[in-house]
């Protein structure tokens, strides 16, 4: 029977709800977990939890020879394999004091720019899928296939290029292949222009992306964002322009920046970079130098590495990627290979961006940063006996594992 003596009902308000987003594909199909604390629909705090995909590649590099590592570092990330290999190979070239010829440098840039095109198209397609616009996703992915074909013509494989070697590239292109790639890029250009228009005009996209996940110039620099997230907030950071490695000093291109700082601006920066990359690709194909064979004989490469260290950087699709390679001059293996990937900066520092937006905006903001989890994992040590967890700080990692 209903107890009539109850006169008051006290409601205890739930201050925050913890919503785990991930680790099974939060936005992309990659394992990262965002612990979102929400007050109703509004996000009040986000914890970025990583550690689901640590593979110990840096240690693996120390256990293998310099040349085997070229192919191991290519597998750090599937989508940015050419830039990883390029950065590592240039570090080896600095240690060995080898310079590739101009044709090899141009071909390297071509492969990296093709990779930039397909990576940016992929993340824009995923963004369309995240906002619920699957038709656009399918359309962009269909056109991305053309770029994959161009990469297959140039390097021999759709994804894993394995194109870089010390002193040059691993295969040359002839006139037939050149024409084929040129045709693909010319076909792609109007399609990309069309997608830029869709992203500028379509209501679904504008409503979900504009003013979501805003970062201002100050925050972008103080949280050390790199790549398109920084450039969309007006930070003019691009190691292609500042370092002028490989043939970037000879190929004309513009550094694209925008001032809006929201998710939409980040996607538009990527589309503009795709347009720039297509122009660069066409320039390379029509101005490919003829100064000798770009393919070195891999049997005659130097076997002995002098002691020394090298620090190189490239502008990967997601931002600045740096490699530190050290050789002690005694063994066939590098003493230390240190990789710092752009996603590490962009994702780990991104927790502040989600605050104040609704729960539905979290995947959009995460996708707009173009997360690449496989390259950003760091170590967490769990002591099973004591049951403690310890995260190894960056300082300690950079000191070569010394405690």
């Amino acid at each position: 029977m209903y107890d009539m003596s109850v006169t008051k009902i006290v409601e205890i308000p739930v201050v925050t709800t913890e919503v785990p987003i991930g680790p099974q594909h939060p936005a992309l199909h990659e394992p990262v977990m965002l612990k979102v604390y929400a007050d109703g629909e509004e996000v009040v705090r986000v914890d970025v939890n990583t550690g689901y995909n640590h593979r110990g590649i840096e240690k693996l590099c120390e256990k293998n020879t310099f040349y085997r590592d070229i192919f191991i570092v290519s597998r750090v990330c599937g989508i940015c394999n050419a830039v990883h290999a390029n950065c590592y190979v240039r570090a080896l070239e600095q240690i060995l004091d080898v310079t590739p010829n101009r044709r090899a440098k141009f071909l390297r840039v071509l492969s990296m720019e093709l990779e930039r095109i397909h990576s940016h198209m992929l993340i824009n397609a995923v963004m369309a899928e995240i906002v619920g616009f699957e038709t656009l996703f399918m359309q962009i992915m269909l056109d991305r296939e053309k770029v994959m074909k161009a990469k297959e013509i140039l390097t021999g494989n759709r994804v894993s290029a394995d194109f870089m070697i010390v002193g040059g590239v691993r295969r040359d292109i002839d006139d037939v292949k050149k024409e084929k790639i040129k045709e693909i890029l010319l076909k792609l250009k109007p399609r990309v222009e069309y997608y830029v228009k869709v992203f500028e005009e379509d209501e679904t996209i504008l409503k979900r992306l504009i003013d979501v996940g805003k970062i201002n110039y100050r925050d972008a620099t103080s949280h050390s964002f790199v790549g398109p997230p920084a450039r969309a907030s007006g930070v003019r950071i691009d190691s292609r322009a500042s370092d002028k490695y490989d043939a970037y000093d000879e190929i004309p291109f513009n550094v694209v920046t925008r001032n809006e700082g929201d998710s939409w601006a980040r996607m538009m920066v990527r589309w503009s970079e795709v347009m720039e990359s297509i122009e660069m690709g066409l320039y390379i194909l029509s101005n490919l130098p003829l100064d000798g064979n770009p393919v070195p004989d891999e049997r005659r490469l130097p076997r002995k590495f002098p002691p020394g260290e090298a620090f190189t950087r490239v502008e990967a699709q997601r931002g600045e990627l740096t490699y530190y390679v050290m050789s002690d001059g005694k063994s066939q293996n590098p003493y230390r290979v240190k990789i710092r990937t752009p996603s590490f900066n962009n994702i780990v520092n991104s927790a502040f961006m989600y605050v104040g937006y609704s729960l539905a905006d979290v995947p959009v903001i995460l996708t707009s940063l173009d997360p690449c989890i496989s390259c950003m994992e760091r170590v967490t040590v769990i002591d099973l006996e004591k049951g403690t967890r310890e995260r190894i700080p960056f300082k300690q990692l950079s000191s070569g594992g010394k405690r």
Partner: protein
Amino acid sequence: MKRPKLLETVLRNLVSKPATIQYPREKTTIEPDFRGIQYADLSKCTGCSLCSIECPADAIKMTPIPQEYAVPKINPRRLYPLINYGKCVYCYRCVKVCPVNAYIVTSKYDIAGPTRYTSEDLSLKTLKEVKSQ
């Protein structure tokens, strides 16, 4: 509300042929120099093990050639590189480092299947078989 930008494309796609293909029945178009499976030509191979040492994926294992095969004199140790295609990453490092250019490259890529697939049959076919006593 404005007319959606993609409407035209969507309507066109309703009547056009699908972009995807029925894969196992219809072959994918690939380039002739696509990096497919590779195997050693045992009439040239000297059994020097360089490809096995250089392989970044540890997919190549130097294996003794069975007794019933006649092996050329350049291969005194009677070893040949056995490639495990499940482990191979198709970087073609073995092809490039081979001192006698013994590797034969193909553009065959559809090798996924329920059984372990190695270069044993392909490589041994390049040798003449000797009849057992």
